[in-house]
């Protein structure tokens, strides 16, 4: 089961604190690896996601248990994950002006 951690989800902060603790005693890459593999966290963090997560307490896709097969697949971006690229194409594909009705309150 996937859990989507969002910016306003305190669990994201907890994961980062955990990562930070590991960094203190290990090399960064090793810490990421350990976190990715550490089943005592009751989460499967995933190496790629851990790498992404190293800098910001933002959305991280995690799984609740170690996956039985193909862990790398679990680290793929979810379909609904939007990045700047997808966002840009959203804006251009629709052909709609985002500006309509928007005016900064001064």
């Amino acid at each position, binding site marked *: 089961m996937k859990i*989507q951690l*969002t*910016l*306003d989800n305190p669990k994201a*902060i907890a994961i*980062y604190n955990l*990562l*930070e603790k590991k*960094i203190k005693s290990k090399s*960064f890459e090793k810490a990421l690896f350990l976190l990715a593999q550490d089943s005592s966290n009751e989460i499967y963090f995933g190496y790629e*996601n851990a790498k*992404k*997560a*190293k*800098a*910001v*307490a*933002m*959305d*991280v*896709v995690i799984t609740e248990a170690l996956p039985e097969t193909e862990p790398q697949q679990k680290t793929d*971006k*979810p379909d*609904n*994950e*939007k*990045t*700047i690229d*997808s*966002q*840009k194409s*959203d*804006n*251009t594909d629709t052909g709609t*002006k*985002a*500006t309509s*009705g*928007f*005016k*900064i*309150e*001064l």
Partner: protein
Amino acid sequence: MNENVNKIASTLTKLSGDEILAEDAIEFEGFKYRVGETSGSNIDYMYDLKDLVNYSHIFVRSLIKNRPIKKIAISIPTEAYYSSKLKEDGGIIEKMKESLKRNIPTLEKVRVLPQGTAAVSHLVMQNMINPKDGNILVIDGGFNTVNISVTNEAGKILYTNSIHDELGVYNLLTEYFREELKRKHDEVTTNAQMLKEIFLKEKIDLGFNTVNIIREKEQALATFLPKLIERVTRELKKKKIEFGQFVFVGGISYYIDKNIISSSKPFFIPEEGGEFLTLLGMKEMVDDDYDVFDVGFGDVKYSFKE
């Protein structure tokens, strides 16, 4: 990037000796100043809102040289702007107008505009973000001020906050990044400009050797950004403000690679020119006959009238 935008360091050099006779020296309260110098002696940075109000006119006067200037737009931190709106005496907005008009007698009109939210206005106008994706969280990270605001899809300001001297670029470089460098290297400069160069070039020159510092950079960001994000989200939670998308603008955007952020919410981080977005937004908010100045604690960004 718009070619009509420029910047200089927000430094004031108090001149002495023959230098006070220099053509570009600006007089204020008995002293002569030069702006924008990053090396030498007697250099001061502006530090707080009081400095912004007192010294912004020196930058304006120096940059316009002897041209009789009539209309200018100038920025102040977001929170100072919107809290001024609530004050009977007009707060910092009125103080800034008064200071500029007193020191630049040709001025007829002064528009004071909010940093950060002006940048969002520009991004929306350029279709870089779509207000329909939900409330827009703006993290405008400057040299030592981080302006945070949330704007709804109509442009109404739902929340503003400015964090001073805690989570800006200066703090990232001189506290977090320097701390990481010190783990391996005995002597590390405290000069923010030199640290910035090391950070962006990802290597440090140690005489006969050049050492790669990518790991130190990553670790500094790994410590700094969660603190910034945690601070932002904690405040928003307290106020029960939600957002559907977010943008990083200002100088901090140079330090954040979009690839390290994974979010289900749309977000925008400019690849270049992030520090000019407030200026560009300000230009769109005023008529073409205004000279525009975005006065930050690290740099003064400016654009002269068309």
